[in-house]
């Protein structure tokens, strides 16, 4: 089976979870043996791993009358224009490439998928990694919504990364439930699981890691930290990452009078991320709305216990993680306290969590996607 995939990010140059998920899923699907994947990116950097798929750069496709179009490959201010250009490139590929099915990852590439579908008549599946309802806490951008809606209406099948997202797609985008399936994300196994070891330190470390934006609920983490520090000593809190709410958070931390125990190390990348997770006693993700949320799984891979919000898609498949509501700072504080104070808690979450995550494989997610392909094509 040959799939033409449209994506926006691909490791090693990634800005969010979308790139990681695209990589994991395609790699998992490649293990099926008879999958040929062509992956279209706005702007490849040349150092992507192409051992299991073929990457086409949209910026190197000749569009009649325009030549090769420049792409930033990021999320620039003229994003809508860039999406339009991407669509134009896709239309060209529709004539040149050989494939059985079209697969679009996230709203940036929906229009490209739709264009190819109209030209070739081949079925389109779209992969919803997030919706604008997640990103905006309800204040949806009408332009983005219109694009998302069009992609979903035109798609032959919609795959969502969690039941939570599936529900949003059905309720907020008016899609028929039969057309919408859930394919939970997985996590790439670490090449060398023992590479990241916990360093001995006097204080316990509680870590938040991600974009410091409204969607991630950073303020609830600060409030929970203040609760914990009221009662106990020997715990430090880390908010790694950057984002538009960072200054506000630094203010809030100062206002609660916990600046001496609360640290902002800034944006982290690559192995730094795994190392701080391995060093942490608790990883916390109080997201207000998280379609899936792969980072707790990454924390659990290196043996770090995770606290996640019920409003995160990954809560649907994790048992050995603590789940609270994002607004329930008492429960969150209680969970932090328990993990740092009761050794059995840390030990169980760390060991059983690692075991659990090691059994969530992209290969299985890939099989589910393959199943959907077959259904859409009527092959089986």
């Amino acid at each position, binding site marked *: 089976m040959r799939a033409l995939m449209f994506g926006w990010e691909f490791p090693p140059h990634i800005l969010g979870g979308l790139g990681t998920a695209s990589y994991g899923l395609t790699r998992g699907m490649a293990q099926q043996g008879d999958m040929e994947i062509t992956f279209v990116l706005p702007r490849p950097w040349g150092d992507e791993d192409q051992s299991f798929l073929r990457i086409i750069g949209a910026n190197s496709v000749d569009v009649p009358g325009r030549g090769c179009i420049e792409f930033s490959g990021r999320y620039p201010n003229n994003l809508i224009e860039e999406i339009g250009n991407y669509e134009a490139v896709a239309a060209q590929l529709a004539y040149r490439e050989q494939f059985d099915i079209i697969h679009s990852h996230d709203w940036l590439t929906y229009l490209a998928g739709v264009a190819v579908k109209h030209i070739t008549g081949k079925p389109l599946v779209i992969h919803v990694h997030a919706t604008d309802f997640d990103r905006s806490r309800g204040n949806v951008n009408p332009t983005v919504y219109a694009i998302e809606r069009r992609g979903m209406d035109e798609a032959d099948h919609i795959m969502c990364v969690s039941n939570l997202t599936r529900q949003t797609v059905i309720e907020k985008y008016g899609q028929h439930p039969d057309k919408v399936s859930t394919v939970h994300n997985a996590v790439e196994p670490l090449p060398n699981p023992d590479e990241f070891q916990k360093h001995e330190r006097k204080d316990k470390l509680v870590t938040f890691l991600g974009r410091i934006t409204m969607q991630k609920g950073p303020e609830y983490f600060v409030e929970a930290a203040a609760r914990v520090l009221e009662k106990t000593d020997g715990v430090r809190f880390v908010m790694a990452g950057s984002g538009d709410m960072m200054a506000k958070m630094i203010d809030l931390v100062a206002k609660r009078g916990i600046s001496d125990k609360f640290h902002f190390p800034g944006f982290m990348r690559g192995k730094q991320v795994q190392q701080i997770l391995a060093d942490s006693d608790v990883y916390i993700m109080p997201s207000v709305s998280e379609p899936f949320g792969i980072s707790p799984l990454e924390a659990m891979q290196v043996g770090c216990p995770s606290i996640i919000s019920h409003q995160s898609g990954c809560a649907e498949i994790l*048992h050995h993680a603590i789940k609270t509501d994002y607004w329930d700072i008492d429960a969150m*504080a209680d969970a932090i*306290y*328990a993990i740092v*104070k*009761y050794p*059995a*808690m840390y030990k*169980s979450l760390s060991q*059983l969590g690692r075991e659990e995550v090691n059994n969530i494989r992209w290969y299985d997610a890939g099989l589910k996607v393959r199943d959907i392909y077959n259904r859409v094509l009527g092959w089986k």
Partner: protein
Amino acid sequence: MKNICFCFQMHAPYRLKRYRFFEIGQDHYYYDDMATEEYITWLTQTSYLPLCRTIQEMINLSKNRFHCALAVSGTMLELFEQFVPEMIDVLKDLAGSKCVEFVRVPYSYSLAAQCNSSEMEMQINAHAKKMKDVLGVSSATLWNTELLYSDEIAGLAWKMGYKTIMTEGAKHILSYKSSNYLYSTCANNKQSLLMRNAGMSDALSFHFSDPNWHEYPMDAEKYANKLASLPEEEQLVNLWMGAETFGVLQPGWTGIFEFLKALPYYVIEQNMTFLTPSEAAKQLSTNEPIVSPYPLTWTGEGKDLSTFLGNDLQQEATNKFYAVTERVHLCEDKSLKRDWMLLQDVNYLHYMNHIDQGSTTFESAYDAFINYMNILSDFLQRVDEQYPTTIENEELNSLLKTITNQEKEIASLNAEIKKLKKKK
């Protein structure tokens, strides 16, 4: 002739309230009375009360030939007194009929037998006193928590005067042997061991109303015939189950109460007799001792303690708790002693199981553990205030001995002074 021994077990824990860590040291009340009342009232109305009324009827209809045992924990009796006092009257009537044996159960349905033998004694004695006070009954038969049994526990029970012990007819202990005999224990050949017939008991608890069960539908006549058709030489069938089998596991509409009510007629017709555990121990001859070096219970696949002590959470909670046993025994604070009693309920450990959490109200095993450990932390602080943990147990013992003995000492010294003065 075949004998049938029924036993219905009743226990429910106090519901714990949501207890956050910032309440440690501030709030010393751990229970959610509203939730407890609601649960106990519901449980009693749907199951225990109709069951006891049915038993009373069975006794009357069979002209006192229906005998059975009830295993009611001390906590349970307390909860009845508080929330459904009519249950006490019903139990008193049953006690008055002389057809029902109220067997001994650890007061708060704890694993003390496994964790601390002196605490086990306390639990047993507390239960004996409670049963005597409320129902005016006594018994020399032990139903340990979740039928927990080992050779060591048998020895402990023998020392305390319990001549009969009830336990699970676990396959890994019995191997080729049948549960349908009266056995003796390793502790003493005069101590009898009764073993539950798991198959026949579970048939009622878990399969009675299941249309996919190969024996469905089950009725009293068929069940009595099955009992009668067991090998001739097998003398005793122990049918023991949680009382909530009747009304909860098998709701009233399945006809389980009518089934039970009809059973004595058919059993007696087949020339079988109903016995209580102590009657069985008295009337039947015992067979060879059963060897059980490792603890067994009636729960889980393995019929062992793994349901309650199988994971790190459960072990930490238990170890932390029983580490202060000696100190709590020494102290006089009534409310502290009461919390000590209630907090060892085996259900609280069950809630911390990752796979099967029993009748939990917590979201997960971790949630249950967090709540319990917060409560336990507060409790341990209170113990520590009475007797600081910085002092070793032995040192503490000798100090306390000095304190309690000082009056005697002073009196004897005074007497000596007087004597000496007289001599002068």
